[in-house]
């Protein structure tokens, strides 16, 4: 196993990511065998619909985990963004374009809120997440007066937003998602922000003592996350149109799972955008497969929970071995 890990191709592509691709392929095979109707475009498209919004959530939380923190308010914040902007759209007649921008803004504001508390007030991230989660749920419910919000269908006015997912047979959503993933990878690996975020996740004190304003960059990670969550909301409504207040939690773990599976370390300092992308596809395929088998979504929750435990434990064990 160790020798295999040292092989140049494996090193370049990343051991984790290769394993994940293998898992992806294996899963697809198994589901296709179990259900004759599985193999084929419709299922893949359905899985992709799930992957888009989840993918943006995962990308966002990757930045936060890279700083060594955590954010499990992302699901409810996504819903809050979708609900608030959707309510403005349907009840206040705000034009579609602006509503979409509003969605991103709501996400960003939560990112600022979370980031400020964690970076400048030293509040433990899990408490900020817990509080944010409930504030988001409460805010959404209050704003929409607990009503479900339905975004317009493709044929309705303003329905062009659904083209963000698919235009004819072109998987626009996939293109946009991968483009953003590439952007995130560039930010993380080629810009100052990304460099500081990863470094402070690995050794915050060393970075502070090098004269860097760690608080600022740490908060930025949360703001980036919030912004991506706002974008995730857009893709959620584009795929499913209906948003109900009071939900959103289940996506937290799945987003974190996709991120951690892909090689991002919970301890901070190590992050892989490509790993996150593949991880998200694995989760999306899993959920689609379970749906296809007619099994309850709950199986997916249990399985995802176990996967995350395994992934985090593998990370913890690997770090202990290095020490």
């Amino acid at each position, binding site marked *: 196993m160790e020798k295999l890990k040292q092989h140049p191709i494996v090193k370049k592509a990343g051991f984790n990511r290769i394993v994940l691709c293998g898992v992806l392929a294996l899963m697809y095979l198994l589901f296709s065998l179990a259900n004759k109707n599985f193999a084929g475009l419709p299922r893949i498209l359905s899985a992709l619909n799930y992957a888009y919004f989840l993918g943006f959530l995962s990308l966002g939380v990757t930045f936060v985990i890279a700083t060594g923190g955590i954010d*499990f308010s992302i699901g409810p914040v996504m819903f809050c963004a979708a609900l608030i902007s959707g309510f403005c759209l349907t009840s206040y007649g705000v034009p579609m374009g602006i509503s979409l921008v509003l969605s991103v803004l709501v996400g960003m504001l939560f990112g600022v809120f979370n980031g400020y508390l964690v970076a400048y007030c030293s509040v433990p991230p*899990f408490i900020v997440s*817990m*509080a944010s989660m*409930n504030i988001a749920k409460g805010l959404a419910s209050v704003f929409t007066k607990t009503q479900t919000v339905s975004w317009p269908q493709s044929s309705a006015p303003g329905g062009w937003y659904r083209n963000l997912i698919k235009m004819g047979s072109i998987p626009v959503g996939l293109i946009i998602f991968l483009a953003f993933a590439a952007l995130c990878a560039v930010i993380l690996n080629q810009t100052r922000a990304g460099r500081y975020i990863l470094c402070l996740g690995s050794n915050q004190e060393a970075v502070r003592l090098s004269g860097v304003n760690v608080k600022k960059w740490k908060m930025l990670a949360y703001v980036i996350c919030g912004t991506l969550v706002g974008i995730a909301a857009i893709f959620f409504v584009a795929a499913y149109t209906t948003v109900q207040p009071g939900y959103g939690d289940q996506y937290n*773990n799945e987003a974190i799972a996709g991120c951690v599976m892909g090689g991002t370390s919970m301890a901070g300092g190590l992050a892989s955008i490509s790993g996150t992308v593949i991880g998200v596809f694995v989760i999306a395929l899993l959920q689609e497969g379970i749906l296809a088998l007619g099994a309850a979504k709950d199986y997916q*929750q249990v399985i995802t929970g176990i996967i995350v435990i395994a992934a985090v*434990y593998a990370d*913890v064990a690997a770090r202990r071995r290095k020490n």
Partner: protein
Amino acid sequence: MGKSDMPNKSIVERLGGQKVIVLLVVMVLFAFFCIASPNFRQYSTVLSILDYSYYIALMAIGVTFPLITGGVDLSIGTGLICYSLVGGYLVVHKGCPTIVGILVAVAFGVAIGLLNGALVALMNLPPFMATLCTCMITRGLGALIVNRLGISWPTSGTEGSWFRDIFKTTIGDIKVPLGFLWVVLLVALMAFVLNHTPIGRYAIAIGSNKEAVALSGINVRFYHTMAYVISGLFAGLAAVAYSAVFSTVQPGTGAGFELEAIGGAIIGGVSATGGAGSVEGSLLGVFVICLLKTGLPYVGLQANWQQIITGLVLIGAVLVDILKKKRSGELRAA
């Protein structure tokens, strides 16, 4: 640790002091709602507040222990729903007597508590991550076992509904909130455990300085795990209280309960970073939250405002805690 050269007694005062402050807050809030809304100041309102507080109070009693070790248990919310569903399933669909359902629910809680303890204390996973996962797992498991259908434990008056009478009973014409008595007794019991038994003592020590505890030859892993087992046990008891008060238990719910319990504990004086806290304080903190939850609609605020306010109050409580620590640890002589 210690101060530069001035001994400072007020930490002790403050710890005793925070409980008093929270008690005052409870009284002020109650008075405020009574004054602001005539409908609020009815006996039935008080009963209602108490009814809906039992399960949160029980969760809070239990979660105080992981919090004191410097960790957290996020699985208590969805967990209690899961345990209630499992126990209820046996009673409603398998014809088991209610007592069996209750025992199974509590046992399941203990089992998950053991799992959490193993993940955190033995495998060294970050507590929020480990319990977030078990939160997911219990949510899925609960829904799977009952096939996504809600469960209604035996309603008052039917056979097997005696367990509801444990929490509220009618003497003559007056409804008596018996559950409050049990909660207070359990608080007294767990306060004893926290302050006078090794389980509690070492939980505090682990939260304060884990290495020092290990160096003293104490089995840290065991006592660390026990904190989570206690949390699981009380989540199980909370499941019973929840089933007794609500007519139906729905799968997929429960997320957000833990905020009320953990928030209550922190408002009541439990330190977010461990080492300090009290069971009585947690109970008082839960009352603050329940008062807000029930009282806000009476002053015209939608119930959902309570979620927002609870979240803000939690952050406020933690900020106060952090400020206290900053001021006392200001000049570290090393």
